[in-house]
């Protein structure tokens, strides 16, 4: 049977033959550098996080180091209100940021996809904050929010608001203030990715729709949006993970304050490991963060039936 199959199979097609004229090890050699780097600096650290999460590990208190079982996890879930606070804030931060960025990014992409005078310049200016780093974004918005010299002073000059308002140090204004600062940089990300995907919508579809009398709004719902679906899902997911993990902006803009009001879970982890040197506990929190990320990604992909309509 096996023999028959072997006979029935034509000899390897010439294309394969030619390719195998180069050593069979070639693909392995080519991926080796990448594989080694990722094993050493991603896989190994991830494994060690899970290992340390089961340990008491604090370089400043070496006498307590050793196996801790699930103590770190028990402590986090039952005995650490800060953990729950930061988790809630992370969720709020990610949902608000990603939702607004997607909305504005989509609108912007649709606008700059039209043909109009000054389109090139318009695109360049709209996209420009995207290249700006989290730290620089913080620097810019620190200048804008500064109570003495910031925009509030000039607003107060015009009779809007009051002098001496510092939006970043007031617990009631710090959240919207931080959201706006991050939106400024985050909207272009969606705009660029969605614009790139808009390039591949066939013009014929719109012409056909127009011939059939479909309104512009209908065209958007029935042609544009379905076409963008996969790109939107993927970029939303990537962005949500990114917003969850990214600490640059909040670390430098608010430092997680005032009064821990803007501390995300990763920021809390960074503080626990850097300031408190409690590496074991920080590792346990990291492990929890991994599981949450993995779970949310899977649920999201399942709910949105990612790519399920193709083939």
């Amino acid at each position, binding site marked *: 049977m096996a023999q028959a199959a072997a006979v029935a199979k034509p000899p390897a097609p010439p294309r394969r033959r030619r390719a195998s004229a180069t050593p069979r090890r070639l693909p392995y050699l080519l*991926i080796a550098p990448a594989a080694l780097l990722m094993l050493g600096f991603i896989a190994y650290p991830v494994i060690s996080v899970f290992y340390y999460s089961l340990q008491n590990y604090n370089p400043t208190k070496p006498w307590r180091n050793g196996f801790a079982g699930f103590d770190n996890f028990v402590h986090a879930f039952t005995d650490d209100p800060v953990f729950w606070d930061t988790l809630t804030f992370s969720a709020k931060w990610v949902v608000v940021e990603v939702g607004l960025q997607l909305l504005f990014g989509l609108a912007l992409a649709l606008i700059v996809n039209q043909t109009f005078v000054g389109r090139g310049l318009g695109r360049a200016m709209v996209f420009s904050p995207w290249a700006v780093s989290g730290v620089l974004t913080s620097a810019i918005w620190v200048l804008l929010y500064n109570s003495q010299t910031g925009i509030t002073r000039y607003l107060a000059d015009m009779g809007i608001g009051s002098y001496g308002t510092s939006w970043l140090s007031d617990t009631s204004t710090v959240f919207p203030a931080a959201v706006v600062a991050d939106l400024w940089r985050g909207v272009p990300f969606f705009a660029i990715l969605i614009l790139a995907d808009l390039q591949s919508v066939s013009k014929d579809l719109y012409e056909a729709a127009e011939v059939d009398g479909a309104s*512009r709004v209908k065209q958007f719902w029935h042609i544009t949006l379905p076409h963008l679906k996969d790109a939107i899902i993927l970029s939303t997911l990537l962005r949500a993970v990114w917003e969850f993990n990214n600490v*640059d902006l909040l670390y430098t803009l608010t430092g997680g304050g005032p009064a821990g009001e803007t501390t995300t879970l990763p920021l809390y982890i960074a503080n626990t490991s850097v300031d408190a040197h409690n590496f074991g506990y920080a590792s346990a929190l990291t492990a929890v963060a991994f599981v949450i990320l993995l779970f949310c990604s899977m649920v999201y992909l399942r709910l949105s039936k990612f790519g399920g309509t193709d083939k």
Partner: protein
Amino acid sequence: MITKEATKAAPAPAHVTADPTRPLKAGRNWDEVPRRHIYLPLSIYLVFTLIPFYWILLFALRPAGSTSLVPWPMTFDHFEKVWTDRSFGTYFQNSVLVGVATLLMTTLVALAGGYALARFDFRVKKAFMLALLCSQFVPGALLLVPLFEIFAELKMINSLGSVIIAETVFQLPLSMILISNFIKNVPYSLEEAAWVDGCNRLTAFRIVVLPLLRPGLIAVGSFAFVHSWNHFLFALMFLNNQSKQTIPVGLNTLMSADSVDLGALAAGGIIAAVPVVIVFAFIQKWLITGFSAGAVKG
């Protein structure tokens, strides 16, 4: 609303497909959006985008203590001060070194791996692809502690090499997926034709494939550069020595000082932004093509 206008223009109802009087214009659909629907929202958004940029320019250029809303009289004192007294000259050098080294390493390693993924079937390919996709979800920020320990073990704390490696590693997965998609878009038969003409695999790749990859490589390379130029945490954690630090860390130091020197902060911010702005001015065209060609959907 637009279709109403169209209907008015053409006497026959729009859904009569065989109407010969209806002019057939390619892309007419795009030309019909009323200008105000474009310029109004765009202008509003641009105000939001540009005011912060203007604000930082204003602070960098006007003398300390001025409250004028135009940077006049103009002064470059803040730049001089931040460049020499606050060591932004040194930070700038370090950042350039990290950025260029990350760009080169990421592009080369991703090019090799991307070629293997695009052109060969090999045993661990599926597993490797899966690892690439998964590692996108692994946050560098959460791996600071184990990474610190690895670099301490390697005696690389306080050396720029640690930051370069860390930046490269976290750039690699996406870069490699993108590049392998770019390579898949180049027909294999082109390469095969070059082999028939007597090129070996490397020469064929260099002469035939590489020139076609240019937009993609520019997109990926500039990504790597900008990311490492902007990224803050690795440099903050792995470089304790002030002479080794990078620009984002310098900016953070300025911001977290007890009394923030706003002029110096603004000037430092401009110095941080200039290279990135230049990179983007050059690559903007390639960026959109690079993205749509390599499309993130793999």
